């Protein structure tokens, strides 16, 4: 455990340990859900993964780079529609095209999801290039405007159904192993968990890299960063494009989970939901975003919904808003502030007088 300088190969292998472990644990949870939970619980878990990916991606811009984007739902919409449209074309009812044949059909979805992510990243580049020269409120308004433009374009595009929406988005392609086949929920879950793990660890490494320090220097003091030779506009655009890519992934997972896309899903309120998660978890805390996404998804559905059924009064959104207000007054920096859950472990091990091992 304490070998002084591990060889590059060992380091490389170790760098995959934490993501693999996370993915394996998530998969085991998925197996349990597949067997024991009803369709509703399963759907909410998928929505939770979508929210986690969305919150993580937004945190890169709003938390780590210190810019304020209000149009994240727009990029999610691009990813959702691109991936959803490709899925309908190749795997939908009566699809004439074929992308990958069985037994590789299960790889269709991740490829489409990446395509959706790339399209969202391209949209992010288009939006970011002119608007990221602006600061603060102006940037917020411009991103808000662009988010709405994307939605209105979708609303007027006949190929994706316009205001009627796009029904019949298929579940990810089947994975057949011998005589056995995985359920559609499990396939959805598998890819959702895969993209969540990818998003989390890519961002985790990124913000700790030289590049990530550049993003954070923009947040801390733009003038000082510039004086140190950081190209702040370039940094902002990069953060924005990477963030849009992951928002697109969230959209792709969302599309195959709900099986139906409608432009009105990606309204301004969706962007606000993402911001709530980022602020609640702590701007600049990735684990905070994950935990906030769990709370924001689970609380209205698993706690407040039964409460509504029990009392017969629909105060769901009132209670939810009140809880958020009380929380933000008592802890304005969010659950974790800029810290991570792992910092807690570190502090604990240090207190015991042991050598703190950095995780991941």
């Amino acid at each position: 455990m304490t070998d002084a300088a591990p060889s590059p190969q060992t380091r490389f292998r170790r760098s995959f340990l934490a993501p693999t472990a996370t993915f394996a644990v998530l998969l085991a949870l998925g197996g349990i859900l597949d067997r024991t939970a009803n369709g509703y619980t399963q759907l909410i878990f998928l929505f939770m993964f979508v929210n986690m990916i969305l919150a993580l991606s937004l945190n890169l811009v709003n938390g780590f780079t210190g810019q304020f984007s209000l149009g994240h739902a727009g990029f999610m919409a691009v990813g959702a529609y691109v991936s959803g449209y490709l899925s309908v074309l190749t795997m939908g009812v009566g699809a004439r095209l074929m992308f990958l044949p069985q037994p590789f059909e299960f790889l269709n979805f991740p490829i489409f999801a990446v395509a959706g992510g790339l399209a969202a990243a391209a949209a992010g580049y288009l939006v970011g290039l002119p608007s990221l020269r602006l600061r603060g409120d102006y940037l917020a308004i411009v991103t808000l405007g662009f988010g709405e433009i994307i939605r209105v374009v979708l609303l007027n595009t006949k190929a994706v159904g316009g205001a009627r929406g796009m029904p019949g988005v298929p579940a990810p392609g089947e994975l057949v192993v011998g005589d056995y086949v995985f359920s559609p929920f499990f396939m959805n879950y598998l890819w959702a968990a895969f993209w969540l793990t990818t998003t989390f660890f890519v961002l985790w490494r990124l913000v700790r890299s030289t590049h990530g320090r550049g993003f954070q220097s923009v947040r801390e003091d733009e003038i000082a960063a510039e004086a140190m030779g950081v190209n702040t506009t370039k940094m902002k655009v990069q953060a924005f494009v990477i963030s849009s890519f992951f928002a697109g992934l969230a959209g792709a997972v969302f599309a195959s989970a709900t099986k139906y896309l409608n432009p009105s899903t990606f309204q301004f309120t969706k962007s606000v939901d993402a911001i709530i998660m980022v602020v609640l978890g702590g701007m600049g805390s990735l684990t905070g975003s994950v935990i906030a996404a769990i709370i924001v998804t689970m609380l209205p559905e698993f706690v407040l919904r039964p409460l509504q059924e029990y009392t017969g009064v629909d105060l769901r959104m009132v209670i939810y808003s009140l809880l958020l207000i009380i929380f933000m007054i008592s802890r304005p920096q969010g659950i974790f502030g800029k810290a991570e859950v792992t910092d807690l472990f570190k502090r604990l091990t240090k207190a015991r007088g042991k050598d703190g091992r950095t995780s991941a």
Partner: protein
Amino acid sequence: MGYEAMLKHVLAGLVIFAATTGCTRKTPVAAPSESSDDSHRAQVAMTGDILIGEYGSMTGGEATFGLSTHEGVMMAIDETNEAGGVKGRRLKVIALDNQGKPDEAAAVVTRLITENKVVAVLGEVASGRTLAAAPIAQQHKIPMISPSSTNPQVTEVGDYIFRVCFIDPFQGTAMAKFAHEKLSAKKVAILRDVKSDYSVGLATFFAKTFRQMGGEIVIDQSYQSGEKDFKAQLTQIRSKKPDAIFIPGYYTEVGLIAQQAKQLGIKAPLLGGDGWDSEKLYQIGKDAINGQYFSSHYTTESTDSVVQDFIKNYKAKYGKVPDGLAALGYDAAKVLVSAMERAAELTPKNIRDEIARTKDFAGVTGRITIDGKRNAVKPAVVVKVDGTVNRYVTTITP
């Protein structure tokens, strides 16, 4: 290194565990799970209250849609319970809010079906949200009745999805009949909104029916919603001297068109569909819109006793005049209740079959017959604009 090797084994174990729980044998994948689902649900439905799910936009920008519908549904359910319920069992509605969001609609209907285990689902108003929820009901084989989604695609989702309102094209047919039979029009002009599916659908079916009845479409002009000036199209229409002009658009443009037609001295009556149905129509069109006709789902001025009773009871219960959505919500619930009464056993399958057999059901919005495509075949009413009030003119049967 022992630590890492152990970890590897644990991870491999987790993945194998996930793989074995996540998959099922390939061959019998669909059939048995469905039947076991059905037997499970039948068990639930056999005792206690009969659970009916309802989903709608009770909060958010379109809250009035969801609330009106809910009031109509609750009135029908309360009436049934006061009369002793269905097969001696009381009905219980679980109404969930979707905040006007399609993804919430999907989540909420999944909850109604898999968690609350309802035998049938009522909803939604907006076609977009019905389309989000319908595949879920279809997948679980639970009947769903939409009170007021008029988009033809809704019931094409599958054989468990119904509606009690007419679909968009029927209004075109109805107004063609009205123009031919009541206005004795021979030559009609059409002015359609090419940007809207709804408008194009109405115009196409109007033209088809009107020609079949021996009439002539003298000119077919178009505009795009959002435009403000229609004088070019109207001048062309005037030169053809039509007996009537069919404008299947929404109230904003129709109001402006009516005003500009009056300025150009066009005397021919204007006809339209339920897209006209708004108080704003008169605010925009002023007296130019008076005396024009459009088709609608229901009118408070109908002399039918079913309608008059409904309005009287609704006023007594909620203290206001019911709007069209409340009437359709009431009819959707009544069609469901009547199907339940006829069903031998209260299983989703039996209820579905009985809804499909609905014939000549006397609803507030007219006599409802469910056709082979699970759409309602029912009359439309034609009303005449008189200020902010719409006067009942006639009923057009299909």
